[in-house]
């Protein structure tokens, strides 16, 4: 037994705090918006140039001028503001966004993140990922623990990096890890998914980590 995608998103949502400005990546991170606790005020940022992103529109009400960073049609809220892409990344790089939740291909035990490029394969580009991980106050990675049986939590990433020592927390289908950022970053196992044992996590992880359950 391990966590489903929905449960991973739910776990990530428990890191939200009232008043947070949050940027959600594509994939499982997008699902986090379904689990914002009742009564909590969260503003979602879309890096193309929008703060206060609403849900998908009703059919027939799509507006080609109103999309999120994944180019999906979205809606506006009473709190919405629009701005240029330069203003959007000033917000991101300047540390005004509280939390970024995104996916990854690999995370290393020092908090290095790789999620944009596989050498030899078609490169699509990094989009805003490098700016987000460099600038946002807290970076949470949500990803499957392994890919085709191979660990994704490694001693060092062997794919080109998106950012160096940038990850604060990793939530996988098996466990939750935190990164101590004082001095050389250290990875710490803080939680096991339902029905997952320490030995199972150890077998599926190449990175070295402390256990602090």
């Amino acid at each position, binding site marked *: 037994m391990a966590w489903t995608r929905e449960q991973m998103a739910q776990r990530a949502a428990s890191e939200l705090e009232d008043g947070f400005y949050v940027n959600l990546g594509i994939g499982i991170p997008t699902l986090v918006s379904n689990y914002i606790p009742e009564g909590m005020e969260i503003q979602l940022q879309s890096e193309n140039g929008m703060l206060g992103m609403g849900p998908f529109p*009703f059919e027939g009400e799509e507006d*080609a001028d109103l*999309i999120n960073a994944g*180019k999906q049609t979205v809606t506006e809220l009473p709190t919405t503001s629009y701005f240029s892409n330069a203003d959007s990344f000033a917000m991101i790089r300047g540390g005004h966004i509280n939390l970024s939740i995104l996916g990854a291909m690999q995370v290393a035990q020092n908090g290095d993140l790789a999620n944009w490029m596989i050498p030899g394969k078609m490169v*699509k*580009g990094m989009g805003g990922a490098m700016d987000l991980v460099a600038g946002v106050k807290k970076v949470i990675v949500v990803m499957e623990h392994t890919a085709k049986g191979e660990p994704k939590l490694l001693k060092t990433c062997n794919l080109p990096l998106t950012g160096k020592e940038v990850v604060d927390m990793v939530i996988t289908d098996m466990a939750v890890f935190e990164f101590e950022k004082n001095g050389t970053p250290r990875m710490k196992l803080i939680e096991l998914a339902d029905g997952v044992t320490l030995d199972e996590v150890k077998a599926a992880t190449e990175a070295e980590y402390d256990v602090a359950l």
Partner: protein
Amino acid sequence: MSDRKIYADATAALDGILKDGMTLMSGGFGLCGIPETLINAVKASSVKDLTVISNNAGVDGVGLGVLLESKQISTMISSYVGENKLFAQQFLAGDLKVVFTPQGTLSEQIRAGGAGIPAFYTKTGVGTLVAEGKEVKNFDGEDYVMERGLTADVALVHAYMADREGNLVFRKTARNFNPMMATAGKITVAEVEHLVDSGEIDPDHIIVPGVYVQRIVHVPNPVKHIEQRTTRPRHQVA
């Protein structure tokens, strides 16, 4: 107010300013807020060997995709180009050079270029491929990489509304890269959905002042494209 900035159509608006080997900026994010009519006029001009600065590269058959199809682009400076099959083919065949740039670095390079700032330092990309060959400098205990400002011979932008002076207003997320690009073009050409007399836009609501805009073409009711049409059922509560 004179009509010295107003051109009859996109071809006229680009007349005399396109040349082989030039650098072109093109606004938009995905297909949202792209200067599509002007792009199509660039295609018709047959100008080639273009360096194009644009966050994305359109899709097959739409936006910058049409200039890839006609092989008029030799270099793209972009953050994300995933939506384009033709792009992949030309890139893998070595016919197209691509400078992948983090999105926030790209928009700041354009902002800086337009503001007369030749370079700046950012923490984006430190310790990655993006920083290779670039100066890294430590400020207050943290490393930053130096990035250059960007300008273009011609910037093509899309705006929702302009007055005859060239003051621009944008609509929703179609703003994206358009305001900075308007400042960074030696000549900026704006295609606008609504063209009104000077004085009709509240000066407090103007996003790009007319000083940045040299040429305007009125394109009423443009066809707008949606890349990912996502909706929710009516009965679902938000």
